[in-house]
């Protein structure tokens, strides 16, 4: 079953309610679905479509635009090695070759045991710390081939489980808005007045 489970359905409704239009919640819900299942399935897209009121084709239309959504299983650890200019200038290609040899798969491939997927990535916004990589979107900076060997060994031995949750889990902290504190979202057509604080006087 790859529909959202009961806990996640509850979460999904909370997220949807934060937006003036339900479809805005689609990308957050796709992340939630990927967190639950590790990747995005057809059944999941059907379910998300039901939740936000669009067809599953529309869900796929959105999901397929974004690099992070995977439509088939990937390794428990997705290793993205940055190859854009600043990293390339500091040896990213050499690092990638080393990783390919160490893991025995080419960029884009998954190891037969399903633990690692190796991928070429674009700029990771850590350009001064080149070359960089991310494991499940968490950084390792100024990576040498020896660092990479150690990282892969430690990941395989389960020594870094606390730092790197399995692929699909992104932020470990969610935003939660207490109902008594929330202003609440309204559809734009239901708002016709200027905000209360624009009355020409100080708010405090």
């Amino acid at each position, binding site marked *: 079953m790859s529909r959202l489970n009961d806990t996640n359905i509850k979460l999904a409704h909370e997220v949807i309610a934060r937006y003036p239009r339900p479809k805005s919640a689609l990308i957050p819900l796709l992340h939630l679905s990927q967190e639950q299942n590790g990747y995005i399935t057809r059944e999941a897209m059907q379910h998300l479509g039901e939740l936000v009121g669009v067809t599953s084709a529309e869900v796929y239309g959105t999901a397929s*635009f974004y690099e992070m959504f995977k439509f088939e299983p990937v390794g428990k650890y997705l290793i993205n090695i940055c190859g854009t200019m600043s990293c390339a200038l500091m040896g990213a290609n050499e690092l990638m070759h080393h990783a390919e040899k160490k893991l025995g798969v080419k960029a884009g491939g998954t190891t037969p045991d399903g633990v690692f997927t190796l991928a070429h*990535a674009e700029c990771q916004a*850590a350009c001064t*710390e080149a070359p960089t990589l*991310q494991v499940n979107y968490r950084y390792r*900076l100024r990576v040498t081939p020896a660092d990479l060997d150690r990282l892969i060994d430690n990941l395989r031995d389960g020594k870094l489980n606390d730092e790197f949750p399995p692929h699909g889990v992104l932020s470990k902290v969610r935003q939660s808005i207490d109902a008594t504190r*929330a202003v609440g979202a309204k559809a734009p057509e239901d708002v016709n007045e200027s905000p209360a604080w624009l009355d*020409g006087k100080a708010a405090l």
Partner: protein
Amino acid sequence: MSKTYVHAPGFVAGDRPKIVTSRFEFADSYTLERYLATDGYKGLRGALSRPANEIHEDVKSATVLGRGGAGFPAGTKWGLTPQQVWPRYLVVNGDESEPGTYKDRLLMERDPHQLIEGCLIACYAAGLSQCFLYIRGEMALAQERVATALNEAYAAGYVGKNILGSKFSVDIILHWGAGAYVVGEETALIESLEGNRGMPRLKPPFFPAANGLYGQPTIVNNVETLANLPWLLTHGVAAYTAIGTKTSPGTRMVAVSGHVKRPGVYEIINGTTTFRDLIYGEEFSGGIRNGNSLKAFVPGGGSAPWFTQDQLDLPFEASQVGPAGSMLGSGAVMVMDETTDIPAAALTLTHFYAHESCGKCTPCREGGTWLERILRRVVEGDGTDADLQQLLEVGAMICPGAFPHAANEKLGLTAVPFPYKMTTICFVGPSAYAPVHSALTLFRSEFEARVKKRVTIAVTAVAGVAANASVSA
């Protein structure tokens, strides 16, 4: 004295005014406790005790320039919303992904409350009734830090209903992206926030300030831009404009990466700091690695045309960098030393933009791919000299007319000023061409040395006709 901190990798502090990085020295700078102990939410309190339009005037007169790339003044942008159309929204652009750029992520990870306070001040001043904070998908730690900070701020009464007990109420909704460079473009960001494929919209009519999220007036501001507001409101306009120059006041975050001794992220004084300071200055990057010499540098993110040593003395001032043939963009300097393989370096960028093209505009979708394929052929040694011409012709389909480039004394080139003309909606297409054009213009001999020379054989050779046959005919 320059200082670095284990908890803020890349950041280098110096003896300069700090506006957005003032808390980076503290390991716990992201907590509400530390924030409140260091003037946190003071700017907001000050703002709320004055009418909203006065705060807007402050931001206008301080000329807070947008830090996302275009450099448009934030106060002016806020004023472009149509009168009496409600609701209006704030969308925060935290989708930092321009090659070479590393600043917004630091600001989100190290000082999320500062960003939140900036969002609140913007919403108050411009009458924006809901805020969406869009963080790039690949930044798990930034998402965690901002989520934690928002939860704390809601609980403490700084965000949500009746902020600080006043009549000001606004929700800030944390939203994650999912990996698409083009979503950093403001109209694409809005599409993405509506749950669609992140493709840019045509401007006009879709200028976000008039017709943005859900068709409503929407202000899209960069993370660093908003992070300036708490300091501005706490210390006042005069203190802000006392730093930097009249047209580029304040500071800005700049990342220097590549072949320098000490790559780093610096908060520099806007308008006066030069590229020479940044690349060679002891308090900044300290010169080129291994005593090598500078070959070229990208002054403002992967999209910017390249500079060489001839432009080192230009300051961080848009009105000087534009006429010199490039742009300041998002505060990203990438340095190449003499050992750099220029065609291969250009390829990394062209590959990036070709890969990130959303596919909406044909010149970008097709042209970017063509540029990448031809350039790759040249880099791998399979190109011909006709390919070099072809690169320029494909580029002219994306950007017709003269393309900006820097002056070069040795090559006898005079500058072609920024900006360019473009046949695409957004800057992804032209950005695929910029590195190719710069590299070919400034380092043509490196390309020529790589291409196979076409050997011209007279067509009559097979028939064995003498070379002077045409003379007799």
